[in-house]
């Protein structure tokens, strides 16, 4: 049974007549009807020349799934993308916030990064305070759907 390949979320069939050569680990030279493509495959990412795509393989034999952790329409956690230090809290528990509104500012790699609400709603908890150190993936705050939405 062939694996199902999704490119940027869409099921895509490979080109039927092609010659592919792996020229370096993860780098493929593919010729299709006289056109030459260099394709680079990494973890969940594939680049054809300058064009980058996300990919996902649904292989019934492997059930190896990636990503999609955010899911669900209800609560949304704001996670620290990398280790850093909390420099500012920009919202309070109970605040109604817009999607994209800054909630917590984390300093990492000498840059201050505003961690934004992924969706509109109400701030149900803030799990850090100023000057806290956070680890990658640590929960900073949780947004819940506003009561009357």
């Amino acid at each position, binding site marked *: 049974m062939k694996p199902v390949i999704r490119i940027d979320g869409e099921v*895509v069939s490979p080109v039927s007549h092609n010659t592919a050569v792996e020229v370096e680990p993860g780098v493929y030279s593919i010729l299709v009807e006289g056109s030459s493509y260099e394709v680079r495959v990494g973890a969940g990412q594939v680049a*054809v020349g300058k064009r980058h*795509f996300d990919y996902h393989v649904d292989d019934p034999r492997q059930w190896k799934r990636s990503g999609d952790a955010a899911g669900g329409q209800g609560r949304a956690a704001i996670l620290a993308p990398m280790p850093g230090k909390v420099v500012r809290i920009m919202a309070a528990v109970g605040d109604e916030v817009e999607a994209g509104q800054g909630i917590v500012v984390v300093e990492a790699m000498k840059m201050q990064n*505003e961690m934004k609400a992924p969706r509109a709603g109400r701030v149900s908890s803030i799990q850090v305070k100023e000057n806290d150190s956070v680890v990658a993936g640590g929960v900073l705050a949780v947004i819940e759907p506003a009561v009357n939405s």
Partner: protein
Amino acid sequence: MFQKVLIANRGEIALRVIRTLREMGIRSVAVYSDADRASLHVRKADEAAHLGAAPSRESYLNVERILDAARRHKVDAIHPGYGFLSENAEFAQACVDAGFVFIGPPASAIAAMGSKTAARKIARDGGAPVVPGTEEGLMASPEGRAAATAFAAKAGFPVMLKAVAGGGGKGMRRVDRAEDLAANFDAASSEALRSFGDGRVYVEKLVENARHIEIQIFGDQHGNMVHLGERECSVQRRHQKVIEESPSPLVALHPEMRQRMGEAAVLAARAAGYYNAGTVEFLADNAGNFYFLEMNTRLQVEHPVTELVTGLDLVRLQVEIANGGRLPFTQDQVALRGAAVECRIYAEDPVNNFMPSPGRITQLAEPSGPGVRLDSGVYSGWTVPLDYDPMLAKLIVWADTREHAIERMLRALGEYHVGGIRTNIPLFEVILNDPAFRAGELHTGYLDALLKRPGLFDLAPAPDLAAVAASAVEIHAKPAASPIAEPANGGASRWLSGGREALLR
């Protein structure tokens, strides 16, 4: 000439200096923190000295440990690179006191220009126009906030808050409304304190739609000083330069500006008793008026742009001048040729709000070919550390005209692939294709405005490319153990090739 030089820095600039030292037959000593043991500058240096733990205070900002390393390795001179201790007058003096030549300006000139407020005084007294601002640096105290508020009320909004000890956009804030001033003032001050150990901030009237144009100057210890033309650095994000080029498209329209700015830059530098490499930054408007902004008393990140249009090696000149040499040319002999553009390649994701993207580089394809220079500090398999600035490399191109240089840069960016982490390469493709950038219609707010455009990074669907991508993914995802029946290996059966190999044994 020096026998051995220590580079008190890391990353691409350390490697940049090592390369020139090697050309000059001088041994190089790299320094490294725990996070940088496997970094490229350590691999490429002749000698290397461990400084300490990853935090800069315990390594690249630690004067005593750097001087210890210099003593252990018996070097003659120390090159500070840019950032870290490069504009720290105490470090420059400590090098000299310990018996090492500091490859840069004298400590007194660094001190004079290092305080942005003092530098403004020197420039104004020397006759260069300056932007209105507070005379003194202000602390994040009730008095400081009051003085900032009073200046802003008099000069009118918007204003800029800047760290007195500043550089690299740290501790810098634009403020548009009186009610935002206090919060921004405190934030700028705390950022300045963390970055420079000095929380003083001053306030300047914001020159709207100004261009950032800077002049490279060079002086020797015998009183000779020249300028090497301008670089335009108006494409900035959060006050950090993103693209630099020479000539400036504005100066190309007003050729007399180059000489006027060059003379003003040399006057300001002379007033501070300056020698070695330095850069005088100006704000300019489209009518050709310009104002002294500040002086950077170091080799700049973007120095390769000047190297490509002048044909000079600025690091070699720095070393020769530090060794007591004379400038080998006069102002009349400085000739600018063609156009150069630089893109700063960062480990950050422009599509996701420029989130820093540290991590392991799993694949690396670097551009080359005609007119392409890559000053890089990374390699495939290296992990970009969290502890430092996320700049990976500088891609610089040269061509006969600006238009050709931009085309060349787009071609080179297309050859550049960094796998495993995100980079800002897609940002450059957007900027370099933007008609306003192509026309040279730049100002320091240009990029922020461009980034507000919706769908900036959206791409047209490309079903053909998606199918090609799927073809590679299909082969790649195949478990290694299963036999390959696709024509990926030219259609030959594994049994057949296995049998042939057996016969050859």
